[in-house]
C-alpha cells in the first residue's frame, strides 16, 4: 500500500540533511507505528511521504502509494490526498480552521457528489460526536472533541490510508485513551491502512501491528509489535522502553540514557546512537550500520522491506539481556515536622467562568516530601500551583508557606514577599517558553543566583542539574527540550528553596528525557531536602516519584493518601479510570471506545 525507498530530506538553504536512508513498506490494512524521540525525524518522514514538507525542505527517494509512484508527480499526489491518504495532525488546538464551523470543515473534504447533509452527521456519529457539533466553531469544543472532528474531517473522503502524527500527545491521559480507542475502532471498521507516529513505545505496541523505531533521522529497528515488545534488537529501542515508567511498581531509578538526540548530520558517519550507547564498540563509529534483517537464524538479509525483524545495530544479535531494574520504596511519611506548605480550603473562580477552578482544596507538604497532585485537564492543578506561588490570587482560603500566610501577595510586605519567594519556587510545563529566549543560560542563572543572594557560580549550578557548564554561553534556542527544563530547574533551585512547585514538568518531554528529569528531581530532593508539590496527569510518574498523592477533579479533591495505597487500592472510580489510561503495552489497551 505504501512503500518508501531511501527517503532523504534536505534543507538546501543550509545544506543540512535531516533524514536519510529511510525505507519501509506498509501492507494494505496493516497498522504501523513510527516511534522515536522528539527530533528523530518521524514527522518529516510522513510529511515527505505526503508531499507536505514545510517550506524550504526537499525530499528525494521513491514513494509509492497505492501502487502509484508519486514522488516525482505532485499532481498525482494532490489527487491522492484525502481519498487515498489522509493525515491527522498532532495539535487539536491548531489543526482546525478557527473561523469555520466544524460541520463545514468536514464537508469541505467530502468527495464531490456526496451530500453533506447526510454525510456530516454520519461521520460525526462515527467519531462519537452528536450531530449538533457540526454547528459549532472549534473554539467551542474541547481538545478531545476537536481531535475527533479532525478525525472525522480526515475520514471525509474515505481514505484507505490514515496517517496520524501523534494524534493525542496534546490531550490528557484519559482523553488520550478515548481518542486512541476511537481511532483503532474506526481503523478496524474501515479496514484502513494505518500509520501512527508516537514517541510512546507502549502505546505503539497496543495500537499497531508493526513498529518502526527511528532515531536521528534514520530507522533503527523494525519488527512486529508483539515480537518487539518481547525482545529488542537495538539498544536504542531498549533504552526507550526502559525509560517509560511503569504505573504498577516503583523503580529505584528510572533507567535513562544521558544526552539527547543528535542532529542527523552530526552522526552522518556512524551509528546515530553510538555516543549514548552502553554497548557501543569501535565498529559502531565507523560507517553507518546498515538496517538488516534479523532472522531466526540471524542471517543478515539484503531485503529490508519484507516486514520481518530488522535492526541497524551491528551487535543486534549479541546484545546481553537487560537486567530488570531494581524496585524502590516510597518514602515513609515524615508527618512529624511542621509542613512547609499548608493549604486550607482554597477556592478560586476565574472571572466569567461558569464553575470554580478550585472548589475548596486543602493539602499540605512536609519538608522533603514529594506530594503529587493528579487530575485530568481542567481539574484545577495549574490554578492550585499558581495560587501557591502567588501568580494567582485565591478567592478564599489560606496558603501557609513555612508558617507564613501567603494567601494574598498584594497585601504582604516586601520582606514577606521576598521570604515567600525564597521559600517556594516553581517550574513550568512548557520547556520552550520557560526560558527567556533573548538571554543566555548563564545570564538567566546568574540573575537567579543574584536574586536569591547566592554567589554567582553558574558552573556549579549547571553541574547540580547535570549539565555541562559550557552551556552557559548558549541561548535557549540552541538547547534541547530536556536541557531547557534542566536549566529551568537550576534557576528554580538556585536559592535552595524549601518548596518546589512543579507544574507538569515532564509532560512535554520524551520518555528518555522525562526519565532524566525525574531522576534529577528525585536527586535534588535528597540533596537539598526540598518539599515538592508535583503536578501531573500521569500516574506512572506519580508512582515513581511521589510520597503522597491528591486526586483532583473539577477543583475538588476526590482522594488522597500515600502513593502506594492510593494506586494499589484506589477508593474512587475516577482514580481507577486515571490508572487505566496509562498505556501498558498490551493489545487490550486502550480498550473499547466508550461510544
Amino acid at each position, binding site marked *: 500500500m505504501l512503500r518508501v525507498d531511501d527517503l532523504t530530506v534536505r534543507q538546501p538553504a543550509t545544506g543540512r540533511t535531516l533524514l536519510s536512508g529511510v525505507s519501509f513498506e506498509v501492507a494494505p490494512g496493516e497498522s504501523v507505528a513510527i516511534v522515536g524521540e522528539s527530533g528523530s525525524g518521524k514527522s518529516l518522514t510522513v510529511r515527505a511521504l505526503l508531499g507536505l514538507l514545510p517550506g524550504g525542505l526537499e525530499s528525494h527517494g521513491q514513494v509509492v502509494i497505492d501502487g502509484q509512484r508519486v514522488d516525482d508527480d505532485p499532481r498525482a499526489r494532490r489527487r491522492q490526498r484525502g481519498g487515498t491518504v489522509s493525515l491527522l495532525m498532532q495539535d487539536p488546538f491548531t489543526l482546525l480552521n478557527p473561523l469555520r464551523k466544524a460541520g463545514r470543515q468536514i464537508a469541505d473534504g467530502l468527495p464531490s457528489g456526496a451530500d453533506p447533509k447526510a454525510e456530516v452527521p454520519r461521520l460525526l456519529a462515527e467519531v462519537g460526536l452528536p450531530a449538533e457539533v457540526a454547528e459549532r466553531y472549534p473554539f467551542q469544543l474541547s481538545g478531545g472533541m476537536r481531535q475527533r472532528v479532525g478525525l472525522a474531517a480526515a475520514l471525509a473522503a474515505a481514505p484507505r490510508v490514515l496517517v496520524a502524527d501523534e494524534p493525542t500527545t496534546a490531550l490528557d491521559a484519559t482523553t488520550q485513551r478515548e481518542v486512541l480507542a476511537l481511532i483503532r475502532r474506526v481503523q478496524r471498521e474501515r479496514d484502513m491502512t494505518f500509520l501512527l507516529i508516537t514517541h510512546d513505545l507502549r502505546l505503539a505496541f497496543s495500537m499497531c501491528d508493526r513498529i518502526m523505531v527511528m532515531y536521528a533521522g534514520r530507522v533503527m529497528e523494525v519488527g512486529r509489535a508483539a515480537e518487539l515488545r518481547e525482545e529488542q534488537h537495538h539498544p536504542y529501542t531498549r533504552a526507550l522502553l526502559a525509560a517509560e515508567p511503569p504505573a504498577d511498581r516503583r523503580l529505584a531509578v528510572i533507567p535513562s540514557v544521558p544526552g539527547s538526540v543528535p542532529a542527523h548530520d552530526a552522526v552522518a558517519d556512524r551509528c546515530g546512537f553510538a555516543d549514548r550507547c552502553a554497548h557501543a564498540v569501535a565498529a559502531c563509529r565507523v560507517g553507518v550500520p546498515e538496517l538488516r534483517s534479523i532472522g531466526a537464524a540471524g542471517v543478515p538479509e539484503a531485503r529490508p522491506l519484507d516486514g520481518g525483524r530488522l535492526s541497524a545495530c551491528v551487535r543486534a544479535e549479541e546484545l546481553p539481556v537487560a537486567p530488570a531494574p531494581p524496585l524502590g520504596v516510597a518514602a515513609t511519611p515524615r508527618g512529624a515536622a511542621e509542613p512547609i506548605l499548608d493549604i486550607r480550603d482554597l477556592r478560586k473562580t476565574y472571572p466569567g467562568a461558569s464553575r470554580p477552578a478550585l472548589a475548596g482544596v486543602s493539602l499540605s507538604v512536609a519538608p522533603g516530601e514529594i506530594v503529587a497532585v493528579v487530575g485530568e485537564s481542567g481539574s484545577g492543578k495549574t490554578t492550585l500551583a499558581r495560587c501557591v506561588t502567588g501568580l494567582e490570587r485565591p478567592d478564599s482560603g489560606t496558603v501557609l508557606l513555612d508558617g507564613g500566610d501567603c494567601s494574598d501577595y498584594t497585601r504582604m510586605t516586601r520582606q514577606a514577599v521576598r521570604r515567600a519567594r*525564597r521559600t517556594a519556587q516553581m517550574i513550568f510545563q*512548557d520547556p520552550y517558553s*520557560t526560558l527567556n*529566549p*533573548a538571554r543566555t543560560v548563564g545570564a538567566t542563572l546568574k540573575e537567579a543566583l543574584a*536574586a*536569591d543572594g547566592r554567589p554567582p557560580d553558574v558552573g556549579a549550578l549547571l553541574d547540580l542539574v547535570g549539565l555541562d557548564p559550557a552551556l552557559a554561553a548558549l541561548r535557549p*534556542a540552541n538547547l534541547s527540550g530536556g536541557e531547557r527544563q534542566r536549566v529551568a530547574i537550576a*534557576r*528554580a533551585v538556585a536559592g535552595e528553596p524549601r518548596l518546589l512547585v512543579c507544574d507538569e514538568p515532564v509532560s512535554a518531554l520524551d520518555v528518555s528525557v522525562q526519565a532524566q528529569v525525574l531522576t534529577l528531581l528525585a536527586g535534588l530532593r535528597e540533596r537539598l531536602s526540598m518539599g515538592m508539590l508535583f503536578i501531573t496527569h500521569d500516574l506512572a510518574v506519580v508512582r515513581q516519584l511521589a510520597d503522597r498523592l491528591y486526586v483532583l477533579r473539577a477543583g475538588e479533591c476526590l482522594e488522597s493518601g500515600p502513593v502506594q495505597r492510593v494506586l494499589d487500592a484506589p477508593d474512587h472510580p475516577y482514580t481507577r479510570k486515571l490508572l487505566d489510561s496509562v498505556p501498558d503495552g498490551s493489545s487490550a489497551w486502550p480498550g473499547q471506545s466508550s461510544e
Partner: protein
Amino acid sequence: MSRRVPVGVSVSLAVLAAVAVAAAFAPWLVPGATAQDLMTGISGPGPGHPLGTDDLGRDVLQLLVAGARTAVPGALAVAAGSMLIGNLIGLAAGYFGGWVDTLAMRWADLMFSLPALLVAIVVAGVLGGGYGPAIGVLVVLFAPTDTRVVRGAVLEQRHRPYIEAALLKNLSSWRIMTRHIWPNIASVALASAFLNFAYALVSLSSLSFLGLGVPAGSPDWGRTLADNRTQLLANPWAVVAPGLAIIATAAALNIVGDWLHERVDRRGRTR
C-alpha cells in the same frame, strides 16, 4: 549556516550608508550647498550641475546631499521619540494591565480617533510651523501606534513562564519589562519604528508642502521637493531627485528592517 545577504538588502544597506555619510558629513562634503547664484537661476542638468539648479541657483545635487542632514535626523527623531514613548507606555500597559492598560489604551484610542494631520496642521499652524514643533507633534501622533504594537507583543509574552519565573525571583517590574520582555519584542518594536521612520519622512515633507515644516531655504528634501514643484517642467530633476531620495531612504530602511526582523524571527524559532 550560510549568511547570504539578498541583493535588495545589500542595495538598501548601500543606500542607507550613503545617506548616513551624507547626513553626518554634509557640512564638509558640500560646504557651499546653500550658496546662491542669482545670475544662474533655475537650470536643467548640465556641466557642473548634474541635477541642475533651483531658482536661487543652488546646485540640486549639493542640496540633496546637504538635505540628508535635515531630513534624516528629523525623521529619526520622530521614529526614536515615538518608539521611546510608545515602548514605555506599551510595556507598562501590557505588563501591569488593569487601570494602567485601560488608561493607555483609551489614550491610544483618543489619538487614533483624532485626524492626525488635523492636529499637525492646527498645532503647527498655531506654533507658527517650524521644525521642532512639527517633530514634536509627529512624535505624539506616532507614539500610539507603537504603544499598541508593543502592548500587543507584551501581552503575548506576559503570561509566558519565563516572565513568571522572573516574577518568582522577585525581580523588579522595571527590570522584567526592560531586560526580559523588551529584548523579546524588540524586533516588533523596531519594525514599527522603521515604518514610523518612513511615515515621518513623508509626513515632514507633507508639512513642508503645506508650509508648516522646516524653515524656508533649508536644504531639506521635503522642502526642496515642495519648493521646486512649481518648476516641474523647467527642471524636473529638482522635484524628482528629492522625491526619490525620500522614497529610497524610507524604502531601504524598511527593506533592511524586514530582513532583520525575519532573521531575528528565524533565530528565535530554531530549536
